[in-house]
């Protein structure tokens, strides 16, 4: 049995994977964060309950941020905590929080390997000219202002089975939408930068804006930076433009019925096009596009629209229904110059597969 854990601020989501005959099954479980913080024995109790029927082989964690220190999956031990806590200054809202939860897991799961997977690790391989901003050198290198990227687990999984030399653009449609250029297993561009404010808008965050707007609001209209930050990260995006506090799949259902929602999707697609353009420019061409993310299964219309807009590059959409091969859907027809796939795997599943690989690697003694 393998647990795949996602540490939210309100609750800890756990997916429990059991190996069946040839395949595996997964169930979900949750721990309330308040309980966890109030009662120190809470975690150990829950782990014991889970362990009653079956041994836990490993607990894996999806971690949003790993900074410069973590470029791949790692076993969680004392050294891990020392390095991880050094990242507090980069992401104060998250690092101490996750660190505390990991610590409690470590205390409750003696003898069980705990493994950390990072959403940013993949992007430590970005070339310098893609990693940094056109800011004075000292702020980029010394203060660590760089593109950290996001959705590295998805982008890596999306592109790892492509032939060598293939120029691939990976698009993840999730709470955040990100676009990444990959060739030879290396990233060459990523839409999400230093923070999720840059890149493509989400349900409540703005995506690309002119940084001049920030200065205009501060200098001419007296906004504080904290207020602007709040506006940009949680009052903008689809919520700001449409007034609807909904996630992407629900909004997609309302397309064509409300001009504000149509406008919001217009902006969303424009931003997506910009980063698809960036990815194609970075690779000097485009052989395949792979979609993934928890919203992608509900975003078929969006995928078709993106393909239509790029049809001048030689993309031919396959007739519906699209062929599925396991969890991989082929969205482009045979004669299409650019291949298009939709990867329907959920994130926890990918992490589970990586966990199995990790455990099978000879360097781990158990």
């Amino acid at each position: 049995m393998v647990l795949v854990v996602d540490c939210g601020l309100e609750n800890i989501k756990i997916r429990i994977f059991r190996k069946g005959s040839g395949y595996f099954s997964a169930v979900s479980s949750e721990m309330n964060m308040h309980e966890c913080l109030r009662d120190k024995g809470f975690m150990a109790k829950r782990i014991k309950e889970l362990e009653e029927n079956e041994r836990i082989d490993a607990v894996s964690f999806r971690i949003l941020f790993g900074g410069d220190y973590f470029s791949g999956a790692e076993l969680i031990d004392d050294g891990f905590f020392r390095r991880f806590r050094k990242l507090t200054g980069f992401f104060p809202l998250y690092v101490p929080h996750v660190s505390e939860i990991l610590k409690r897991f470590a205390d409750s799961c003696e003898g069980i390997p705990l493994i950390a997977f990072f959403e940013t690790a993949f992007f430590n391989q970005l070339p310098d000219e893609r990693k940094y901003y056109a800011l004075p050198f000292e702020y980029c290198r010394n203060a660590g202002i760089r593109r950290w990227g996001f959705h590295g687990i998805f982008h890596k999984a999306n592109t790892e089975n492509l032939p060598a030399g293939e120029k691939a653009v990976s698009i993840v449609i999730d709470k955040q939408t990100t676009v990444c250029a990959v060739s030879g297993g290396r990233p060459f561009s990523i839409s999400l930068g230093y923070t999720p404010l840059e890149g493509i808008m989400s349900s409540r965050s703005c995506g690309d804006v002119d940084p001049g707007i920030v200065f205009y609001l501060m200098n001419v209209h007296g906004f504080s930076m904290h207020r602007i930050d709040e506006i940009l990260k949680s009052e903008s995006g689809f919520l700001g433009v449409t007034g609807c506090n909904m996630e992407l799949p629900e909004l997609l259902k309302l397309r064509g019925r409300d001009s504000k929602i149509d406008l919001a999707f217009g902006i969303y697609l424009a931003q997506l096009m910009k980063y698809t353009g960036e990815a194609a420019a970075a690779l000097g061409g485009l052989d395949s596009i792979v979609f993934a993310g928890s919203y992608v299964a509900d975003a078929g219309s969006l995928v078709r629209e993106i393909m239509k807009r790029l049809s001048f590059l030689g993309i031919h959409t396959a007739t519906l229904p699209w062929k599925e091969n396991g969890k991989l859907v082929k969205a482009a027809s045979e004669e299409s110059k650019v291949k298009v796939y939709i990867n329907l795997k959920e994130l926890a599943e990918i992490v589970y597969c990586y966990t199995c690989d990790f455990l099978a690697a000879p360097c781990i003694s158990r």
Partner: protein
Amino acid sequence: MKSDRKEKNILVLNCGSSSLKYKLIRMPGEKTLIRGEAQRLGIKTEGVSVITHFSGGNVKKVENPLSGHGEALCEVLGLIEQEDGMKFDAFAHRYVHPGDYFTRTVKIDESALDDLKKTLPLAAIHNPVSYNLIDFCHRRYSSVPQFAVFDTAFHKTIPPEYYTYALPRKIAGKYGLRKVGFHGISHRYSMEEACRFLRKNKSSQKIIVCHLGTGGSSVCAIKEGKSINNSMGFTPLEGLIMNTRCGDMDAGTVFYLMSRENFSPEEAENILNKKSGILGLFSRSSDLRDVIRLMGTDNKAKTAFDMYVNRVRTYVVFYSMILRKADILVFTDSLGVEEPEVRRAICEKMEFTGIVLDKKKNSAYSRGIEDISSPDSETRILVIPSDEEIMIAREVHKEMKKNGSGS
């Protein structure tokens, strides 16, 4: 004086923060009669102001302490009057950021001045200088008609999905936060010249213009003669990497600079506007031409050049996508015209968008308008030297003809 009344002499004034470029152009022939530039205006510490004045084949240099743009203009007008028979029929001013108040060339009167005054905070460096000069001319030379030509007017056709930021509707509406776009005068000039050169009707062409200057730079997507997108945004800070401006940037970095390094909003703005871009990356110079010279041996220069080129390529492919393949790609302004290496790097491996450069033609380019695309390129690649003053004069002349027929 004998003159054909159909001909008009237009004095075009183009203000920088501490400089004033002027050109006396005879329309409709577009003949430049006099041109020149006053530099170091109003700066007390850096030596005396200089006016360099070209007339016919002659060059005149006048050194004189000048307190500001108004005083410089008086001096320039004195120089022009010394030329025998030089008269002018209108002032034409370039005005950077009129916000929502003006979307087309305007004849200056009291009410226009009132509206201009409201735009001063929008471009805190450029607008006040231009405004003061317009106000000065209005009071001093009330008999000469004056026109303001706007850099943003060309971009008023950008559709909502490209000009709207994904910000709260209320806040964006209240403070007028939207993509405005800049360099419109240059982009329009490039479009007109490109279509004239290729003998195409502009309403049938999809054009991408790369205005690559040593100061500001921007890329523009043009469809059916109308701008539909521009890489600059609400301010000239967004978009390409420029000499000292960072271009596209995660807004989060601004907050971190302020909270970590304790910068005030003004200091942070100064860093992004004046200390970033090529200067921030290369530190030894803000001029891409120095970067190009040194990038064979200097790693920092190489990174700076790659970042610069990558950003332009991003916009070229992005605009190719929204235009669904461009018919014409134009390079203009100093870097776009003078630096074949910039054009080569931007067009490299762009076959998938239909852009194929002829490398020989590219490096052989010397002057005027030229087509440097390979014969098998689906997109015609042109180099077009910019002449904003001619464009301004065209705009004003058009307006004068309209006004004339109306009276």
